[in-house]
């Protein structure tokens, strides 16, 4: 079995398709996810420190908690921008989904999270590259079979991984979609002017003018409205934002990593491209126990190597 074989000629254009796709996905996985994780951890740490500091004012605590919500929403947008070009493609881009990743679409994240409860299993499977792209739901397993995968144990493991990952992601998306809905207006208020309402002069009141204690109140951007976090502590707002932000980074990483596995099977050597053994070809993300230990073992060890089949078209022999 060859360690590397020449890549098929119909791979796609290197200059406009393969290499830009690879670069954009690497940027998401190895740069943006790392940056966002560091920033989220930093803001959570700072907000918790301020929340514990007796001398910190109510407004300082609010502003620090708002920063965490803003960071979490940036993580949610990263995940949406990385995944939506495949899960919810809007542009016909012959050069690949990377073009859509670089197109600013103000409604993308909103569509992505707010429609997620309506997605079928096939659409969740696109997140993990078990299916290629929404609207073109060829299964990666089917493609592998066409390309010669004959090992039925492996095929079964792939099917189990797809089903378990889809179930897991569907459940996780409830957290993400809820966080998006609740936090995005706070994030905009933080980013566009830090519109925190000074507690010395601002209070949220009911119809009878009774003050309803709020741990945090902001004016909204671009509308004559305000919103607030009820209670006397920002702790649960910080915890919810931390959880959503971390999950969103994990999702962005998972999406980019799953796509990159295909590209990382390519070896670039000068102007030539080769296929090298495909390590961990089956992306998965689920809790331990979601698949059998035997399947998990197979997923962890899976490696696809290549053989060259030469066809002599003159007499039809191989």
């Amino acid at each position, binding site marked *: 079995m060859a360690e590397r074989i020449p890549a098929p000629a119909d791979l796609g254009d290197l200059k406009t398709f393969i*290499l830009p796709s690879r670069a954009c996905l690497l940027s998401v996985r190895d740069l943006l996810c790392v*940056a966002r994780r*560091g920033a989220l951890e930093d803001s959570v740490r700072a907000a918790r420190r301020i929340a514990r500091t007796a001398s910190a004012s109510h407004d300082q605590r609010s502003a620090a908690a708002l920063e965490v919500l803003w960071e979490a929403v940036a993580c949610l947008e990263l995940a949406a921008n990385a995944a939506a070009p495949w899960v919810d493609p809007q542009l016909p881009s012959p050069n690949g989904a990377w073009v859509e990743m670089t197109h600013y679409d103000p409604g993308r994240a909103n569509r992505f999270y707010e429609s997620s409860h309506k997605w079928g299993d096939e659409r969740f499977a696109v997140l993990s590259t078990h299916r290629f792209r929404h609207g073109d739901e060829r299964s990666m397993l089917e493609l592998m079979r066409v390309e010669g995968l004959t090992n039925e144990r492996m095929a079964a493991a792939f099917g189990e991984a797809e089903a378990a990952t889809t179930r897991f992601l569907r459940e996780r998306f409830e957290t993400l979609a809820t966080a998006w809905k609740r936090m995005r207006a706070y994030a905009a208020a933080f980013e566009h002017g830090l519109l925190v309402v000074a507690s010395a002069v601002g209070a949220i009141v009911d119809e009878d003018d009774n003050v309803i204690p709020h741990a945090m109140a902001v004016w909204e951007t671009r509308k004559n409205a305000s919103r607030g976090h009820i209670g006397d502590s920002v702790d649960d707002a910080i915890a919810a*934002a931390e959880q959503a932000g971390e999950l969103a980074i994990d999702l962005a990483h998972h999406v980019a990593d799953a796509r990159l596995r295909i590209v990382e099977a390519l070896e670039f050597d000068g102007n030539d491209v080769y296929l090298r053994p495909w390590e961990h070809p089956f992306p998965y993300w689920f809790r331990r126990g979601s698949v059998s230990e035997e399947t998990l073992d197979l997923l962890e060890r899976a490696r696809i190597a290549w053989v060259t089949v030469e066809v002599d078209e003159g007499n039809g022999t191989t």
Partner: protein
Amino acid sequence: MATSERPPGRVLRISGLPGASEQTYAGSPQFVAYCLGGDVRAKQRRDAIGRAQAAHQRATGRGEDPYPTALILCQRIGVALEDVARLVLAFESLSTSDPFDVLRNARYDMLDDAFARLADEPESLRAALMLPTPRDTAELDEPLRSAILEASDALARRWVGHWTRCARGWQLLRRLAKALRHGSPLLSRELVLGPPGAGALGEGLGDVFERWVLLVGSEVDHEAEALNTTYAIADIGEDTLSRARHAGLEAVALARKLAGAHVQRVHSESKWALPRDVVKLVGPKHRRILKRCARG
């Protein structure tokens, strides 16, 4: 996370503001209330930049990948720069519309315009910053008028300098901050130069900085039914980061001073209010006059 999310029957009540907050020169009660939060806002923005800078120094000191921390620092500086532009646009609109609506409705193209336009027009900037001018001090007696104008000139020089550096910082960081906020791919120098490189992305650009990222944007050309992708290099080397950080901190300080001066103006029901430390910027004779004036 429990949130009120504008439920029916609940409203934000603003109370306890200075009596003159309803006057035209105050803008609106909401704008005065916003300015009252100037110190908290400044502390938050400054601390966020400081933490990002510390993280970046730690990363570079340990020889770790400097790109993630450099980008986060850029984003936080960009947000601080945005604050001051929104505030100055609000001040510019004081006599024509509710400045708070202007502040919270301003879009990026308005911020771009404000930075560029006011950096080129120091007198317009001076008026927007509510500093006394020779024309609107004509009714004052001497030597108070001269003292106020010397202070105003000194402050204008300082603030125009801040603004010019902020405008340069905005030019550099605006697209970076937006790309980071929305999760758009940013390709590091090493990724673009390869091997194997980023294909068509970055083609034709030189390698002119020690550390940079490629900003990539694709626009839809509906008429031609085509997608056009463009790219540009953003320098995030240490010298540039240092200049950008100073610009960000100047933006934070300027926004704080402007908000504080407005609150003081409304409290004292005065036409102008100059920060207390302005006395350090004028000669001894005018300093004595201004101190006497400040004591009432």
